[in-house]
């Protein structure tokens, strides 16, 4: 089984729209939305939820005012300034380290585990999908990403699917690290802007750090052809495959408004063909076909 993770470093480069378009092309695959912090893929996939499971995070401190004698030990030990002058826990600041719990001389502090979100097994018109929703202002996004990636692999195995397509989170921090470890390859969607190229460099470095091969595709390339050129040169320099270019096309936004993928919206267009070509390059790439096994394409289409 192979897993491609679509990431971008910078948000808003069209990562999710492209992920959805790829999903429309890959017949025998399973989808995963690992952007748990601001999950959007379901807006295009309209998944039917089959199973919903709570995601339990770590504990959080709760002081019982009836037992507390106001000795101040907890406040002194808490490194996250989470205990207020009135000996109440600021749940937003509490890191869940439990140190105050263990050291309170009156055993006045409880440490209940918190429901941090939920995750779903669903069906979509393009096959099964695993997605999640992290609660507002919650921590542990990396843990939730690891959990749903484990689930999606298991699901793919059960269904005999050869490919997992994962929509990754933006940035280079904890959820991104959780979403790329052990992936077969990364598809990095870049926009041709100074920010885009800057963020791509950091993502490419991250990919190298975790030894996952990367491939780059420039979205909205015609907004700045020189920058597109520079991005592709940079990719080649870092040994990252260049997949191709997608033009700035309002059809992406229009199909999004309609809740559809690019391929389900309007008449066939040149943009659609370009995305098809990019997809063909991805599945024919050496990273997706190690050891020269070339039957992969036939198993997913």
């Amino acid at each position, binding site marked *: 089984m192979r897993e491609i993770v679509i990431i971008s*470093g*910078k*948000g*808003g*480069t069209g990562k*999710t729209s492209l992920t959805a378009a790829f999903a429309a092309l890959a017949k025998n695959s399973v989808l995963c939305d690992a952007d748990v*912090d*601001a999950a*959007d893929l379901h*807006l295009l996939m309209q998944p039917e939820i089959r199973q919903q499971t709570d995601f339990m995070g*770590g*504990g959080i401190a709760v002081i019982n005012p009836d037992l507390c004698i106001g000795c101040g030990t907890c406040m002194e*030990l808490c*490194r*996250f300034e989470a205990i207020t002058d009135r000996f109440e826990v600021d749940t*937003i*600041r509490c*890191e*869940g*380290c*439990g*140190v105050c719990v*263990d050291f309170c001389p009156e055993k006045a502090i409880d440490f209940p585990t918190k429901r941090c979100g939920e995750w779903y097994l669903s069906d979509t018109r393009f096959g099964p999908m695993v997605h999640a929703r*992290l609660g*507002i*202002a*919650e*921590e542990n*996004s*990396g843990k939730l990403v690891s959990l749903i990636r484990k689930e999606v692999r298991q699901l793919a195995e059960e269904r005999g699917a050869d490919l997992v397509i994962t929509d990754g*989170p*933006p*940035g*280079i*921090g*904890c959820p*991104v*690290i*959780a979403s790329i470890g052990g992936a077969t390859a990364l598809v990095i969607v870049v*926009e*041709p*802007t*100074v*920010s*885009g190229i*800057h*963020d791509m460099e*950091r993502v490419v*470095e*991250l990919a190298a*750090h*975790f030894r996952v091969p990367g491939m780059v595709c420039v979205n909205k390339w015609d*907004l*700045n052809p020189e*920058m597109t050129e520079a991005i592709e040169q940079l990719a080649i320099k870092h040994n990252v495959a260049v997949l191709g270019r997608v033009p700035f096309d*309002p059809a992406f*936004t229009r199909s*999004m*408004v309609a*809740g559809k993928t690019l391929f389900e919206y309007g008449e066939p267009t040149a943009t659609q063909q370009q995305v098809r070509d990019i997809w063909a390059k991805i599945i024919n790439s050496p990273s997706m076909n190690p050891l020269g096994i070339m039957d992969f394409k036939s198993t997913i289409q």
Partner: protein
Amino acid sequence: MIISVASGKGGTGKTTISTNMALALGSGVEFLDCDVEEPNAHLFLKPVIERTELVTTPIPLVDLEKCTYCRKCSAICRFNAITVVSHKVLIFPELCHSCGGCMVVCPEGAITETGRELGEINFGARNGIRFINGRLRVGESMSPPLIKRVRSEADPEKVTIIDAPPGTSCPVIAAMNGADFVLMVTEPTPFGLHDLKLAVETVKLLGIPSGLVVNRSDIGDQEVFAYAEREQLPVLLTIPFERRIAEAYSQGRSIVEEFPEWKERFCELFHKIETIIQKRSTTV
């Protein structure tokens, strides 16, 4: 006065808005780029960086001479960052949250602290605008401590504009908590609206007044405006999609410097925010 510029969804133009507002206000403003995973504001503000500091977070260091392998440290650690196996104490620095619990619990005083590098913080200036950003080390997963470090540089005497990271989880909270105003930037698309709703919930939880900028206001649909009205979220500025703006942005050129008519609109945006903050402080 601290104004945090945020957006649930990335790529809506948060950095464009924050940097242009800073440039429009000019000298005396302070700018903190708290999007430490992908800091971009310097590409538009073009500050001269005067100095750089490494930022570390404390992690335990065990003196095996003193250690009796009692396992109390591993028992207290909620993050599985320290374990004792026979006559060894293993530390997993990337899992450590720097809570200091192991150090306090160790009966032998065998634990001291050393630093794990989180990234760096840069200090600079441009035309009287004070500039500070954080850059997370590639491969480092914990951004909140670095964001908090950048935040601690805010000068309470100044107007501080913060470029916050995208999303709604811990990094964003670290960048927004304690701000006087959160300016949310969105685009009028289903993705933009969906993520805006999450951002609005986050801001409500923190109890900070907020307002909205709708970028590329003529693409997509009208749902964002209807939502803003329902939520009584003031729309403080709309920026239509213009290819020349998108192209200038792609080259790292700012809107206010490129198209002077925008300078006044960004100053106006700031004054609207100022008025909201003042009104609130007189009613509370």
